[in-house]
């Protein structure tokens, strides 16, 4: 098979699987649907892995080609095409691997669900959409994939569409994302206007020529075109990757079944924004204003969303706020021009966060779909595989040396420290403080769930057991990279230039150059990790958590009362939800009602049309007395013709 056929098969296999499982759901049945979709995604993973092997181990030339022309007009070619370089290859492997694991896991998790086939159809469709997004070689296809993953996310958050909370959450997710897409679309329009193309390579080539240009948008203020473009595009990323203040949809997305929380709302889709900025690094390098903006947004998200995680009681929501916080870390890396570190954290996070979500799901199965950690405790004895893998994921999350998360998170912190950019001071503080916070909520979750005495009611507890192998196998398979992938790949990916064909950092900007001077191999780096302040901070968080949740549970309640104000602010999530609910949604609906009633009904119909309508009313009532039904309407037809003719002749004669 030639390489282009293989590349085409990678997204098309899951698309075909989705069509079969979805449209022929009755014909293929439950087993048929999971067989087809899992084979499709497994095939897609195998081919992606093969492609990645080619890209990373051979003398690979970047492939950039058109699959088909979407439309050609006005001197612009809109196309669907693939750009296969190291960044694409990495993303393809991560996406298909996590997707594969989640597919297998779903067999166990959705076992009794009446929508079984539909679910498999959706997650296969998601895999297709996500692959199209990461393989794109142009902005049009990026936008396609972007919205398509949004669609599937919408369908999956609302998968249990009978639940009011689920269908509220999916509407919210879609609309908040549309708010981000609003920026993205304007950014794309600006790219086309100033660079004359939507093709990445052509845009990158044209970008330096645009760097000095300005445009006036708001009042008389002149904006750098590049800053405008980069910030608009990043607003799109803020929606998709849930950065403050467009983050509000992600915690609610937990209404969806847990497998998709792992796949879509932790490992892959939500990282699309991070991926996009990294992909567009040649543009972002031209605007340090945009990078500062990104740095600050990321820092706010990393710290403040993590804090909310501390007060959550729903196990999935803890992991969700953790995801927000980690996405913030990735964004911080982007803002520090450490794009490859962001991608590196994206990858390690995909493994350990998918692991944590699936672990949470395994707990939820055992608890008969109860998610409140206050009703758990001591589950480690009942479900050892889930508990051990959750520990592995948690250690990676807090950045314990040698785990995958250690390498990626430590390098983000190092990068911010050396970044010379407005906002770097605040970002440095935020990522350091975030380490304590991460350790706090992570270990709180571990202890409340797996340790201490059981708070579960006897009925549920008597049925609780370790999950079946289709659930635990993916946990184990994800635990392996959560432990080792960082140690294995940190050197080639970040210091060996493996991503250099995709990521472009301006000379003097690259924080990895500084860090690389002190980097002497992964093992040395990890050993040194035990002696850094970061490690100390993480241990501080762990210690506080251990003390409170393992030894002195009563302190938690005391603290909550002592720090009532802080607790309330965190519990209310800083009021973002209320703001959107009351001001944006409520205000929008009020405005809609006002326009509809006052504008259309009163002003236009009432005042303007009313006069003429009355005239015709009088006119037609006379007609009505002599005619009925058909005749009445024919009369009107005749009147039109007659009046027209009269007009014509009067005017022509005159």
């Amino acid at each position, binding site marked *: 098979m030639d390489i282009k056929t293989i590349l085409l098969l990678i997204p098309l296999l899951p698309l075909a699987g989705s069509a079969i499982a979805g449209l022929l759901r009755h014909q293929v049945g439950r087993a048929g649907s999971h067989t087809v979709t899992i084979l499709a995604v497994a095939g897609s993973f195998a081919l992606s892995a093969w492609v990645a092997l080619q890209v990373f181990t051979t003398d690979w030339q970047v492939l950039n080609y058109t699959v088909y022309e979407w439309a*050609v007009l006005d001197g612009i070619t809109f196309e669907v095409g693939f750009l296969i370089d190291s960044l694409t290859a990495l993303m393809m492997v991560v996406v298909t691997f996590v997707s594969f694991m989640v597919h297998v896991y779903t067999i166990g998790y959705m076992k009794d669900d009446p929508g079984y086939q539909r679910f498999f159809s959706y997650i296969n469709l998601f895999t297709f959409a996500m692959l199209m997004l990461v393989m794109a070689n142009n902005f049009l296809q990026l936008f396609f994939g972007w919205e398509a993953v949004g669609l599937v996310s919408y369908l999956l958050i*609302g998968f249990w*569409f009978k639940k009011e909370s689920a*269908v509220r959450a999916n509407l919210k997710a879609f609309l908040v994302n549309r708010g981000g897409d609003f920026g993205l679309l304007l950014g794309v329009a600006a790219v086309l206007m100033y660079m004359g193309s939507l093709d990445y390579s052509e845009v990158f080539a044209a970008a330096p020529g645009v760097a000095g240009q300005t445009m006036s948008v708001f009042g008389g203020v002149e904006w750098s075109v590049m800053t405008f473009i980069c910030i608009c595009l990043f607003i799109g990323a803020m929606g998709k990757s849930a950065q403050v203040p467009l983050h509000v949809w992600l915690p609610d997305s937990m209404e969806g079944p847990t497998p998709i929380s792992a796949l879509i709302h932790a490992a892959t889709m939500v990282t699309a924004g991070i991926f996009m900025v990294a992909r567009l690094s040649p543009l972002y390098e031209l605007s340090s204003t945009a990078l500062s903006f990104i740095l600050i947004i990321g820092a706010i998200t990393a710290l403040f969303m993590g804090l909310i995680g501390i007060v959550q009681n729903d196990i999935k929501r803890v992991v969700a706020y953790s995801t927000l916080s980690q996405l913030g870390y990735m964004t911080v890396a982007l803002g520090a021009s450490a794009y490859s570190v962001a991608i590196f954290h994206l990858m390690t996070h995909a493994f350990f966060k998918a692991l944590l979500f699936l672990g949470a799901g395994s707990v939820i199965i055992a608890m008969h779909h109860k998610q409140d950690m206050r009703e758990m405790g001591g589950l480690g004895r009942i479900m050892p595989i889930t508990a051990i893998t959750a520990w592995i994921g948690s250690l990676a999350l807090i950045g314990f040396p040698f785990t995958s998360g250690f390498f990626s998170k430590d390098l983000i912190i190092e990068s911010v420290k050396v970044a010379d950019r407005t906002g770097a001071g605040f970002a440095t503080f935020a990522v350091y403080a975030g380490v304590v916070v991460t350790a706090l909520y992570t270990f709180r979750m571990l202890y409340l769930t797996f340790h201490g005495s059981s708070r579960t009611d006897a009925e549920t507890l008597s049925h609780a057991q370790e999950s079946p192998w289709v659930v635990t196998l993916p946990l184990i398979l994800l635990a392996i990279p959560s432990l080792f992938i960082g140690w294995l790949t940190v050197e080639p990916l970040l210091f060996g230039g493996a991503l250099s064909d995709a990521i472009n950092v301006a000379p003097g900007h690259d924080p990895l150059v500084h860090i690389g001077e002190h980097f002497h191999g992964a093992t040395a780096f990890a050993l040194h990790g035990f002696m850094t302040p970061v490690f100390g901070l993480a241990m501080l968080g762990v210690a506080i958590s251990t003390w409170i949740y393992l030894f002195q549970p009563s302190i938690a309640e005391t603290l909550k009362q002592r720090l009532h104000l802080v607790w309330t602010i965190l519990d209310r999530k800083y009021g973002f939800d209320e703001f959107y609910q009351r001001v944006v949604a409520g205000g929008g609906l009020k405005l809609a009602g006002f326009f*509809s009633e006052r504008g259309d009904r009163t002003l236009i119909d009432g005042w303007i049309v009313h006069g003429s309508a009355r005239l015709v009313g009088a006119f037609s009532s006379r007609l009505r007395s002599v005619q009925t039904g058909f005749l009445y309407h024919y009369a009107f037809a005749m009147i039109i013709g007659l009046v027209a003719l009269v007009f014509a002749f009067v005017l022509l004669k005159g």
Partner: protein
Amino acid sequence: MSAMNWPILSLIVWLPIVTGVAILFLSESRAAMGKALALAAAVAALVLTLLAVAGFDMTTAAMQFQEKTPWIEAFSINYHLGVDGLSLPLIALTALTTVIVVIAGWTIKDRVSQYMGAFLILSGLMSGMFAALDAMLFYVFFEAMLVPMFLIIGIWGGPNRIFATIKFFLFTFFGSVFMLVGLIWLYLQSGSFAVADLHQLPLSLTAQIWIFLAFLIAFAVKVPMWPVHTWLPDAHVEAPTGGSVVLAAVMLKIGGYGLVRFSLPIAPDGAAALDWLVIGLSLVAIVYIGFVALAQRDMKRLIAYSSISHMGFATLGLFLTFAIVQNTGQTDGAVLGISGAMVQMISHGFISGAMFLAGGVLYDRVHSREISAYGGVANTMPWFAMFAVLFFMANSGLPGTSGFVGEFMVILAAFKADFWFAFFAAMTLILGASYSLWLVKRVFYGEVANDNVAGLSDLDGREWTVMVVLAILVLALGLWPYPLIEMIEPSVANLVDHITNTKINP
């Protein structure tokens, strides 16, 4: 191509009209025959249209398949037909929509043959209007097609149909009078009703402004543009499903087509002077009407307002040229905008038609258009829910569906004209998704809301057919708009050339 040799356009126009008139006289007892004949004629017209598409030369902006015979020689009025890349797609849309409404109207009980006949006649008249190259012939078709539409709403409509019909009549008639006066004035200037002659006729700026305004009133009512839009929701609410489908899918396009065939090329300098007005009204339509749609409680009313908002993209795209030239000094982007407007019209034909059909599917079963009468329909009609979600997603401009293509192109072009045009136009991303998906949530999601919903049966074979056809079209145009754009582009490029040169008499 052999299609060149016979009067294919006349066949497309008159075959449905003649068959339709014949069917009108069939008695109630022969309803089955009426339906069969209607379907045969509609399909035949569609096949003829597809032949015309197949034989159409995509490389030229010239009028093709022309037919010309003197009609009223005293005023040098000709029976002159022909198509280019602007009109042929709309004729194809007309023919396709006709087949769909005939199938969709299969279960009509009352005066079946007359119902079918009215739709066929309407279809032929609309095709004739799109194909007319003589302004008077255009006007005759333009007015004549109101008759079958009045009948459709007035006879098979809802309880308030008389009111809706009068309102519809008043608005349209009010507008078309101005057009007639304008056409006659142009005739007196040029001695010709030939559209091509009027395009070349030099006119002073003042004259162009008056002509432009006269045409604008006529076409703005048809589109409809804010603030002459309020007839549309009333007409839709009272019209039977088939009537709504034709109204939304084809009749609204007449306004856009009129602007692109008459207003822009006949009075380009007038258009350049008043483009701010059209652009302003278009943006009001997109944003203000988007909000109004959000407040609707009646499904059909909501879809009607959504139509107005989406047609705002068509009118916006058509009038960006002058602002682009002013802002950038080049015409790059003008073709993108006008082509986007044309694509938007075709796409809106599919999507609005599909949404009204979806509304009809529910109305046929529950006899209510109120959104609050439903809830949890996806429980009892899963396949129908799938189609509905697709169509409402397409309505909110989801990439991969046809709804994205035109809006995307128009927004890209609008950005070249002025950042704020693009800014307000792009608000449809949020507004369109809000009213479309909120409707989906309230109607389709949630627990089964009441006994009516509990008793719903999923789509039957006939409904499936219609939904599948439209779904395929919506996806095909979204995933590969290339052929349609290839057909439209030469004519649009030609138009941009024409309107960027002044016509003011030196």
